[in-house]
């Protein structure tokens, strides 16, 4: 059932929900506003909600500079001062206005022309720009754009039960949940969906990514909505979740990164954030309630969760991310704005090395599941442990009728999150850099026995591993991983010689200081140990218990 395709010419889906987004946008903003308002008013009174939002925003904006804010500092101060003297109706009016502003700020956009332009022109242009060939050859290649695409195709593989997913996209709404290593993951995922013949998805992107005028223009018009992670108060989060739920109910395929942020350590995510992911469950319950006549509205198509692993031979921001991770844990920054992805030069260097190191990215779609983690049959019905059909609605029954129940639903979501985390471990594809880093890191552990992580990273060490030892180590690791049925990607599945070759070439091609270098005597010497640690974490995290 697993298909593996090399990315080649596109067979884009011609009809998909995002095409009608521009017509529905205003309605979505209105519905989000209305529903978020009723939901928060069920929990608390408007003066408390506004008071909390004002105080948190006043503090945040006093401490940091404003950047594309929904409300400026003086406005917040004015609103806060006025709260005491207002009647309930005025307060509700203020609250509605604030929620509407947030909903308007979050809501994305989709423009077919811009999207088509981006998806058809950008990849060949990218290939052209990044071509490793001599500049003299370029004019020749420009006459044959498909050749450029072929070269990109070699670097990007898409695997998984693609035909099953294509069928599911017709009968239901897909929620793709990829692992997250790099800011490049969302464009790469967009590209992969298209290559797999799957419809484009809407997705939340950090507001900081929209500040770049060109990138921002494309993101705004290719289905991204804006998530301002600097805003910490509950009201904003409620509006964001409501928006996500509303678009899921309306059948827009979506994408969330449930790790919440890029993996700092390079490990495969084990703990997932349930916030936005939970909207897949709340939207499902709303749909079941409509089916049962408990709630009104148009029918909600079934929602299918698709775990995806994005596996990269090299990670653009590796150096910054691992350095951040190794700083006192807990103080790690949630939002990093000044990493490699913000430096054009590094992005170009990275892309160039991508083009020369084959098999650089593998995107692997896992088996789709319903919101409770059940498997799905060909037509999207939920299937229990021994293949029998299960009736999803019954899981939400309260006295025979589907109904939301916060504690129960939170626990359901925990279980689904575990199922996704297990799928990540199963579906991770290891590449030569991961294997090479793993065996070298073990050698470091042997050379510096009994030391903790920080000393292993910093103790002076001049370690050379002979070619023969390295070959044996790699072969042993490959056998171990194969026995545990982990996936070895292109070249990682080759001979140990090929793994070492490909790994060293990749390390040499991009990072400031290579993680490992071949010596003149054909041994391999240790380079940047933080990077070795980072890349080996991918392998190590597969063995982690839940």
């Amino acid at each position, binding site marked *: 059932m697993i298909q593996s395709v090399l990315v080649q010419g596109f067979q884009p889906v011609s009809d998909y929900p995002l095409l009608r987004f521009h017509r529905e946008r205003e309605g979505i903003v209105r519905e989000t506003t209305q529903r978020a308002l009723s939901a928060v008013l069920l929990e608390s009174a408007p003066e408390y909600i506004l008071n909390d939002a004002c105080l948190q925003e006043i503090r945040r904006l006093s401490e940091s500079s404003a950047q594309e804010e929904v409300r400026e500092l003086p406005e917040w101060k004015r609103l806060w001062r006025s709260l005491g003297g207002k009647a309930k109706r005025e307060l509700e009016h203020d609250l509605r206005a604030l929620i509407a502003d947030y909903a308007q700020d979050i809501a994305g956009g989709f423009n077919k022309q811009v999207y088509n332009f981006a998806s058809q022109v950008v990849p060949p242009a990218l290939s052209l720009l990044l071509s490793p060939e001599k500049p003299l050859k370029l004019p020749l290649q420009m006459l044959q754009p498909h050749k450029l695409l072929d070269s990109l195709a070699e670097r990007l593989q898409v695997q998984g039960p693609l035909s099953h997913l294509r069928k599911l996209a017709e009968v239901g709404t897909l929620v793709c949940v990829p692992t997250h290593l790099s800011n490049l993951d969302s464009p790469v995922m967009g590209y992969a969906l298209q290559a797999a013949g799957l419809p484009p998805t809407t997705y939340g992107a950090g507001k900081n990514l929209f500040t770049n005028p060109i990138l921002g223009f494309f993101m705004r018009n290719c289905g991204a909505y804006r998530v301002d992670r600097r805003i910490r108060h509950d009201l904003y989060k409620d509006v964001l979740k409501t928006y996500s739920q509303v678009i899921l109910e309306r059948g827009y395929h979506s994408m969330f990164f449930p790790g919440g942020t890029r993996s700092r350590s390079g490990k495969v995510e084990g703990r997932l954030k349930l916030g936005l992911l939970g909207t897949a469950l709340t939207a499902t319950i709303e749909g079941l309630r409509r089916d049962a006549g408990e709630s009104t509205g148009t029918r909600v198509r079934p929602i299918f969760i698709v775990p995806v692993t994005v596996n990269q031979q090299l990670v653009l921001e590796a150096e910054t991310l691992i350095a951040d991770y190794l700083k006192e844990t807990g103080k790690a920054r949630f939002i990093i704005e000044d990493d490699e992805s913000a430096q054009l030069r590094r992005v170009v260097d990275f892309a160039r090395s991508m083009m020369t190191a084959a098999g650089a990215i593998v995107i692997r779609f896992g088996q789709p599941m319903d919101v*409770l983690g*059940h498997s799905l049959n060909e037509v999207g019905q939920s299937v*229990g*442990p*021994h293949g*029998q059909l*299960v*009736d*999803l609605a*019954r*899981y939400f*029954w309260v*006295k*025979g009728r589907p109904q939301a*129940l916060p*504690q*129960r639903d939170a*626990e*359901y979501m*925990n*279980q689904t999150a575990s199922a996704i985390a297990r799928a990540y471990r199963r579906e991770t594809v290891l590449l030569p850099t991961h294997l090479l880093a793993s065996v070298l890191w073990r050698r470091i552990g042997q050379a510096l026995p009994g030391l903790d992580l920080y000393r292993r990273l910093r103790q002076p060490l001049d370690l050379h591993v002979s070619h023969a030892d390295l070959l044996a180590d790699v072969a042993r690791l490959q056998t171990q991983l194969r026995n545990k049925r982990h996936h070895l990607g292109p070249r990682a599945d080759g001979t140990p010689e090929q793994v070492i070759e490909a790994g060293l070439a990749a390390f040499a091609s991009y990072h400031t200081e290579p993680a490992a270098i071949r010596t003149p005597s054909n041994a391999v010497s240790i380079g940047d140990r933080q990077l070795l640690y980072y890349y080996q974490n991918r392998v190590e995290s597969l063995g982690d218990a839940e």
Partner: protein
Amino acid sequence: MSGLTVAVIGGGRWARALAGFLLHNQRRAPDRITKVLHYRPPRELVRAQEDNRSEPDAAPLDVAVAAGEVPDVSAVDSAQQAERRQVTSINVSELGQADVIFLAVPAPSVRKVLRLAAPHLHGAQSLIHAIGSVIPACEEHPHTTLISHAVGEETPIRKVGGLAGPALAPDLEEFAPAALVCGSRFDEVGTQAIQVLSGHSLLVYTTRDLIGVELSRAGSSVIALAAGVANILDLGTPARAILITRGAAELARIAVKLGAEERTFFGLAGVGEFVAATERRGSADFELGRLLGQRVPLAEAQKQVGRVCDGPSMVREAHLLGHKFHVRTSIVSALYQLLHGKFDTKDALMALLSTDIHNEHE
């Protein structure tokens, strides 16, 4: 509150005691329990475990009800008949009617029974088990499995709970004061357990620490076994107290590695149940310990006890898990040696009560 239909799966003494107790509750509070169903899995599924037991294969509820005190009916005989009329023995295919299912079958047959029942179960149901054991690793499932995990692996049911606490089968049969803790990640399940189980003689508490409840109940057979050995050697109450508290500490250390909360082991589900299980009355593993203490070989001792003993397999599991997680286990290790004939009783006893740890919280 709307009434719940309750089903009990199992043919052993616990299952019968539970069904009898539920029937009694139904008679007292028909608004809480609409119906009590009883499903006895086919003998061949559980026979392997029960074959050598001398326990009579009684009719489903006779034993349970006969011993029961029925407060509001004067003639005991007619009360029994009335209760018997209300019990509904069902086929596996009728399990779908139940809102709450209690599972009380021997651990080795859990998967087989669940597989048989799975096609008839659905997501609206809750399943609460009362099994004092984990499922040992086997070829098909290479890790020790909690009963609650097996339910998730074999059936569509998600809302799972577990029972533990100082309530042995005779307590339920005789309506002696007793208590149970229902552990479940779902608050709904705890509420349902209170609705159907709590009554004038039984207190029901709830916790979200399902794993802790399951493991402390599984651990009680280990403690009962140790206490049986200590009992036959006439060591007195302090020795029993040491086994209970230090045993709880030891088992808790292992359980925490599996995701349990330590404090569960020092509450009703842990120490509470251990106190009840280390009395002569009721606990099969306690009897087994007494026989082992008299140098009766394990196989012979099990035959003499004639009831399901989870102790030996739980000692083995605890020993292996302790090893796996690098947890010090003095009581478990001593029992393990004893079960494998490597210790003479005197030595085992010394080992049971000796330690090189002197900080109580280590």
